[in-house]
């Protein structure tokens, strides 16, 4: 990046992650000094606001440069802050290899930062209203909540900005930590504490693979790295990645091994099958957390990472197939699970997993730009949906079970309106954000194989169906309220305002990824053509220029039809918000299987948790009896000797004297015999 075209100096962009952290630290100070929590949100709100402003500036800055010189900016630029960990190569410090704290700016970073910061800002603003009781007083732990939010935004920005794999890992783990802290925010509730622990540990399972992936990368690339290059920097890794394609290890190419290991991390973080179990449970946290962490930002980290590592994944067809398969299985499984739930947030959580699976299918089909585009649009409407659900929950006094209420459109009109937008976007209703991005992935799936495409299309239909099942159960039908809701349930203005912004995003975000004009015969509704600004932008990143299939206009109409069909079916079955679930009766055992989430949790418990704990108990007993037993046996020799000799120590004075005399005599005899 040349100074002439830059709006702000790179050093300033490098401070992006720090502002929320400062805010959080300030709140921490607030807590330590026991200041009243009433205004504790301000430092974090301001911090995130500054970051968001910087991110938007960065986006336009980058876009201006790419527009100015479309060919020269193939990659990004690096801003190095300091050398963090020494990798201790021999000789002097000058030739050392480092793990640096450095930030990497390119198109992908720009897109990610744009929605991460802006959606975060909306969520933080929403939380100001949400984390209060009906009288507007802050909840217990209000300031703690905002401190954690600040740290979370910091971690997410670090993750996205990281210029090397270890810094990425840092952000990766820190968002895991924040999700732990925030899911466990109501730590007095055993379910919340358990969910927090589960989230962290399941994430760590993925991180285990991710860490091994980093280690293998270092292992494979070390021979090629020149002095002065830091071996785990993106720039260096992608520069030498080509070597991984040919070298073999254990029957596969090195690229495959590295990709699969890294993908483990993505599975954990993005809650893909088989590590999806933590995300639905994570809904125990406060709703803004669900929106922020488990929908809009944190879970997208997996997609981001795979997209970032396109130069490695792209070298291994096998790895891409695995990504595709995991995505497909996950999309179908979780979509079906979502059909048999009543908890609003859980349904949304499953839909998140399902949508993330869509993105992985996109990645697996070799169109990372489409996947990232879907990440981008998904963030807006999913945050919107979660926050809307939160608004319902807030009004209903903490009740979120769709069987307990219905007809809420009468009491929550604004929420009803924004939820319309959100649900339509998620369902893939034409012209809304989700429609454009989802269609691109379905298109790529058809390009890959017709069967894949059909499965994806069917899943999209299911998505529309269960989304509106939830929506109608909630907002339509006769007005029913739970006792907890009180006399006059109402929505809070502080909370609704950010929802409108997000609703705007849910409508408009898609238009960053489509272009207008062109021949009417090649355009949807004679106006829109897939691929737009955001794709061009993303091509200026490590993603490069993926090949997209042409045509497929029919698919846009088809998928619009499928979405509409799903919505219509939902209206037919649930439009009146029946108390008895028609699906449960119609599908029977299958429905119960879905409702029980395919018993995955139970299987894991029986397969991993119990055996490992039993092993632990076995080891502990081994320690107490086995190892100590062996040592007891070893010590038995001196103990036996001591026991045998203790008869000499009977306390009789003369016995001692006699043994002395005998000893003396023995020495004399020996001595005289010797000489």
């Amino acid at each position, binding site marked *: 990046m040349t100074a002439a075209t830059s709006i702000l100096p790179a050093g300033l962009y490098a401070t992006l992650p720090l502002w929320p952290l400062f805010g959080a630290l300030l709140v921490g100070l607030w807590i330590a000094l026991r200041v009243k929590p009433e205004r504790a949100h301000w430092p974090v709100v301001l911090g995130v606001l500054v970051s968001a402003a910087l991110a938007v500036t960065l986006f336009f800055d980058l876009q201006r440069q790419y527009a100015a010189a479309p060919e020269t900016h193939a990659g990004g630029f690096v801003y190095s802050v300091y*050398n963090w960990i020494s990798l201790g190569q021999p000789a002097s410090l000058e030739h050392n290899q480092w793990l640096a704290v450095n930030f990497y700016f390119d198109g992908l970073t720009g897109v990610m930062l744009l929605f991460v910061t802006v959606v975060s800002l909306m969520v933080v603003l929403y939380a100001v209203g949400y984390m209060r009781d009906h009288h507007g007083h802050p909840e217990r732990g209000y300031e703690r909540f905002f401190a954690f939010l600040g740290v979370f935004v910091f971690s997410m920005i670090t993750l996205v900005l990281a210029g090397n794999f270890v810094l990425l890992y840092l952000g990766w783990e820190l968002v895991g930590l924040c999700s732990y802290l925030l899911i466990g925010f109501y730590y007095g509730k055993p379910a919340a504490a358990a969910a927090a622990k589960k989230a962290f540990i399941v994430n*760590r399972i993925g991180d285990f693979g991710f860490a091994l992936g980093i280690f293998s990368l270092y292992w494979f690339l070390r021979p090629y790295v020149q002095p002065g290059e830091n071996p785990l920097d993106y720039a260096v890794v992608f520069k030498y990645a080509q070597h991984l394609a040919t070298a073999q290890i254990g029957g596969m190419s090195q690229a495959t091994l590295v990709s699969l290991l890294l993908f483990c991390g993505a599975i954990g973080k993005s809650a893909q099958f088989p590590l999806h179990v933590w995300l639905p449970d994570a809904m125990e946290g406060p709703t803004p957390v669900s929106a922020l962490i488990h929908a809009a930002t944190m879970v997208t980290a997996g997609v981001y990472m795979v997209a970032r590592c396109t130069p490695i994944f792209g070298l291994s067809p096998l790895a891409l197939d695995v990504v595709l398969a995991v995505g497909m299985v996950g999309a179908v499984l979780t979509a079906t699970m979502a059909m048999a739930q009543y908890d609003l947030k859980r349904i949304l959580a499953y839909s998140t997993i399902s949508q993330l699976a869509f993105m992985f299918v996109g990645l697996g089909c070799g169109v990372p730009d489409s996947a990232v585009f879907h990440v981008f649009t998904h963030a807006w409407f999913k945050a919107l949906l979660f926050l809307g659900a939160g608004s319902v929950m807030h009004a209903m006094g903490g009740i979120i079970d769709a069987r307990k209420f219905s007809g809420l459109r009468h009491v929550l009109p604004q929420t009803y309106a924004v939820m319309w937008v959100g649900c339509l976007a998620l369902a893939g209703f034409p012209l809304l954000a989700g429609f454009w991005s989802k269609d691109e992935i379905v298109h790529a799936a058809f390009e890959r194989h017709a069967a894949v495409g059909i499965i994806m299309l069917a899943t999209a239909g299911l998505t529309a169906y269960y989304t509106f099942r939830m929506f109608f159960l909630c907002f339509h039908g006769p007005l029913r309220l739970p006792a907890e809701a009180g006399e006059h349930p109402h929505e809070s203005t502080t909370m609704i305002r950010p929802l409108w912004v997000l609703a705007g995003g849910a409508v408009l975000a898609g238009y960053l990824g489509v272009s207008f004009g062109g021949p009417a015969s090649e355009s949807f509704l004679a106006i829109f053509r897939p691929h737009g600004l955001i794709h061009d932008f993303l091509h200026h990143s490590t993603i490069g220029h993926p090949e997209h299939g042409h045509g497929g206009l029919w698919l846009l109409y088809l998928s619009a039809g499928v979405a509409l069909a799903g919505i219509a079916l939902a209206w037919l079955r649930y439009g009146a918000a029946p108390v008895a679930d028609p699906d449960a009766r119609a599908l029977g055992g299958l429905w119960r299987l879905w409702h029980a989430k395919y018993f995955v949790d139970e299987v894991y418990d029986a397969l991993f948790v119990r055996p490992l704990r039993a092993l632990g108990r076995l080891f502990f007993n081994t*320690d107490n009896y086995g190892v100590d037993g062996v040592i007891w046996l070893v010590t038995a020799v001196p103990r036996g000797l001591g026991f045998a000799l203790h008869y000499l120590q009977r306390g009789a004075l003369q016995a001692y004297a006699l043994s002395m005399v005998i000893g003396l005599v023995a020495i004399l005899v020996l001595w005289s015999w010797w000489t």
Partner: protein
Amino acid sequence: MDVLALNLLIFLPLVAAVLVWTLPERRESLAPKLALAVGCVVLFAGAWLWPRLPAAMGDRGAGALVGELKADWIAVGNRDGTSEAATTLTNGFVLRFHVGLDAISMPLIALTALLVPLSIWCSFTAIRKRQREYYAWLLALTTGMFGVFAARDLLLFYVFFEFTLVPLYFLIGVWGGPERRYAANKFFLFTFTGSVLTFAGILYLALRAAQIDHCSVIDFDLLRLSALSLKQLTTAEQSLLFLAFFAGFAIKVPLFPLHTWLPLAHTEAPTAGSVLLAGVLLKLGTYGFLRFSLPMVPAGTLEWARVMGGLAVAGIIYGALCCWVQRDVKKLVAYSSVSHLAFCMLGMFSLVPVGLSGSVLYMVNHGLSTGALFLVVGMLYERYHTRDLDALGGLARQMPILAFFFVLFVLSSIGLPGLNGFVSEFAVLLAAFNSEVLGRWYGALGATGILLGAVYMLYATGKLLFGPVKEPAGTPDLSAGLKRDLTLREIAILTPIAILVVVLGIAPRLVTDTLDPALQTQVLARVQEASALAAAVAGGAP
């Protein structure tokens, strides 16, 4: 001045111990204050020495010593009449009082200097009987710990190494929990049994050194013994010597399967004892391996490196799984030490630069985080008189400050990036994975430790801090002048460690910049020499 500061570190506590011991009975209340004052002096002396090292290394290279002092202590043999210098012994043996700090010992000295005043301070309310003896033993222990790390003479090292046993034996045996006597005996016998074998190894090595160098005076100089000709000290000899060193150091570390004394000793010891045991004394073992086994018998090290790596990996997994089924949170932390120290050994025996520096960093970081965890658990125990995970719960609501510190140190312990534990854990695993000696399976299996670590630590955190409030009847017991949540004194004890946990996570180079060259020249060069020699022999044989 450096010499003065270093000897102040070593001997002031001993002098103070005698003083404290002999205080008249009516002045008993003075004992803790006096001890703390000495602790502070020690801390300042340590802090004063710390920045001297980079300066000294700038002047005199990687092997520079800070505060070096060399004097004959015991010299037996005939003297050369023509010269008056003490070194002109013509035969016999000499034991020198030779101390000095280099980049390998400096971090550990600094760690000790930090933990000593904190552990003295944390005993203020916990120890209410026989205070004078208690603080005297604690101070005597301090002398031993500083002496070990400062010693530049193998026999002097051994003297201090053994000396540390005695105070800790009494600290556990007198002020410990219900099973203290058994624990103290077990601790003493385990460690002592091993170290006599080490002593035999030291003597043999010194005798052989005199033989190899054609020198009639037997001395135990560290540098000289680390520079013996590897061609003359045969591989078989080195292999056996490695085993002799192993006996003492592996029990001290403690390496699986010789670890069974540790959980018991930790559980029964008073808080300060646990802190110093975990924070410093276990490092005597790892430090011993690094200082003696690796440079003195490099060929032996190479012979046994895979076995050591295997034991380390087994220890990581075994310790972690044992943690998971504990009900006593202190025992859990103790078992986590077994797992963590195994990480340290894994890094060391990867025999690559990043592994060695990671290993030393691990020593420091483990001292900070586990020491701090023991402190927190001790504070909990003072209030509730139990450490049973099933009897306690939801304490985050009762004691938010304690919860904050506990969670912070737990996160440091499980290697959260950004905190100190991560840097060393990452370095160690990366090294094991990329090591030519160990290889990727060791690294991959060792990496399960980062997963299991999270499992057991969060299990404990969840049980202790989260969920509905659960307290045994009649607690918290605030009779010792405590508050429900931490008092200012306790916050002041934990804060320095918390700050260091963050600082070392962000800037590990505070330690590694001086450490790396020293490890390279003093340890790795020898190992590389040995492996080159072995390769030459293997190449020349057929």
